[in-house]
């Protein structure tokens, strides 16, 4: 266990060192987040109507609702992209084989390499929220930060299973996973990113409730906008934990099986 944690930290430190050799992207990120937050603020002012306010949880502005949905949707992107990206990059730069002849296992290398993208996403989210709070009145003071942190961890863990499934597919078939893009697409419609799930037709609502994104956004809005405690968001959290229990071990098993197949077929470093 300690060894795995040490290895995960090594991968994170490696990525921080690599990232520190590029300096300008962080500044650009700050500016981009400012424009993003401003865009949501003005769109929200433009579409504001009594009907919209009625459809949202009480006391929530559309700006706050949409900003939370948009920026936290990034975690799904990070989960689905970072594992694939790590694998592709290791294959392309030739670091995959040197890694595989060390004492670290590929699943640990993969998970370790995804920590930095998640941390980066969290920083980006913080910048968006910061601009939203400073310039556009985002209600940050009402947040329950303990709940926010717990929802974040549950979100990352449950989404990671999806990402590891995707990289198992990539390992076997060498090309990006089309179901990943399908999942991102459908989640952006039914996950409650920019509008409440309640306004969807009932059959789409069924799909929405089979999707961890719906619960993650629900819990995050509760914790961030309503200051909801763990009890109030307990149901969404429980579903996220169940998704994690289901997806994380099965995705790691699928990945290990895919790795074994590539060692049998000799396609490990093939592109």
């Amino acid at each position, binding site marked *: 266990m300690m060894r795995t944690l040490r290895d995960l930290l090594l991968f994170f430190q490696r990525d921080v060192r690599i990232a520190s050799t590029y300096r300008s992207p962080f500044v650009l990120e700050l500016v981009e987040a400012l424009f993003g937050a401003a865009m949501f603020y003005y769109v929200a002012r433009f579409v504001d109507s009594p009907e919209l306010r009625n459809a949202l949880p009480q006391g929530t502005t559309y700006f706050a609702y949409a900003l939370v949905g948009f920026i936290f949707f990034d975690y799904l992107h990070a989960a689905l992209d970072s594992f694939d990206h790590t694998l592709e990059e290791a294959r392309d730069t*030739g670091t995959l084989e040197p890694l595989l002849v*060390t004492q670290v296992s590929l699943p640990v290398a993969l998970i370790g390499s995804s920590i930095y993208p998640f941390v980066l996403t969290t920083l980006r989210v913080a910048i968006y929220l910061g601009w939203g709070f400073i310039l556009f009145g985002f209600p940050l003071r009402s947040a329950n930060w303990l709940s926010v942190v717990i929802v974040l961890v549950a979100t990352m863990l449950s989404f990671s299973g999806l990402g590891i499934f995707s990289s198992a597919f990539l390992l076997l078939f060498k090309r990006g996973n089309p179901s990943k893009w399908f999942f991102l697409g459908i989640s952006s419609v039914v996950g409650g990113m920019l509008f409440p799930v309640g306004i969807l037709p009932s059959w789409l609502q069924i799909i929405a409730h089979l999707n961890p994104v719906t619960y993650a956004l629900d819990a995050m809005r509760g914790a961030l906008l309503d200051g909801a405690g763990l009890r109030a968001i307990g149901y969404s959290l429980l579903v996220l934990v169940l998704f994690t229990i289901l997806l994380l071990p099965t995705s790691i098993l699928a990945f290990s099986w895919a790795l074994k197949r590539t060692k049998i077929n000799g*396609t490990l470093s093939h592109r």
Partner: protein
Amino acid sequence: MPDSAITIDRLEKSFPRAQSGWRALLQPFASPTMQALRGISFDVRPGEAVALLGTNGAGKSTLLRILSTLLLPTRGRAVVAGHDSAREPAAVRRHLGYHAGSDLGFYARLTGEENLRFFGQLNDLSGSYLSSRIATLSAQFELRGAIENQVRTLSSGTVQRLSLLRALLHEPKVLLLDEPTRSLDALAAADFRRFLKTEVLQRQGTSLLFASHTLSEIEFLADRVAILNEGNLVAIETSAALKSRSGATTLEDAFSRLTGHSPHSLQELAPS
């Protein structure tokens, strides 16, 4: 240390044929029908250097990749330092250094030293021991200044030496090299061979199994030469014994007589 550093016992490896069109979707599940290794057996003794000689497709890299746990054998066993490569891959990797002869395999924006530290730590090296290993080996490899630079700024030959240094960091009992001097110029290659012979083989007593197309390199480094041809082990003997057995005066000629390949089939493959 067991009696053999490496034991290869009736080792077979087959690959599936590459599929195209819609059948490519079934590629991961295709049956292995192309034989790359056909039941070869031999040992490498502790401290011994054995060269693998053969044309492209003879099975040299496949054998090295099975030993380094990057491939699973179809049948038979490959044992490194007493551990089965298929059943105990982590134990095998603890005793193994592997260098694939490529000048890739590093994080280009990290310095050589940062790369070495990262890979060393993944091999359970840490603290002052890791620092002293990096300092000692980088001095021996004449890389002391180079490792302070980002890898993307280093020449191909320097990266090759860095790659060998990485393979030796954890003092492996067995070193596997796949065409180790492929990207080196003639002088660098000669230095590299001398270093392998004096430091790695003679001083440290590391066992070496390496594939090469450069016959002078094989004659300089190898105690015995294993000739592979289309997945079969044709012979494994000292260079002198191979020449005497085939009535040849050169290793190139001996290879040609034992495998039926024309002499230039090796020259064509050898780097200039």
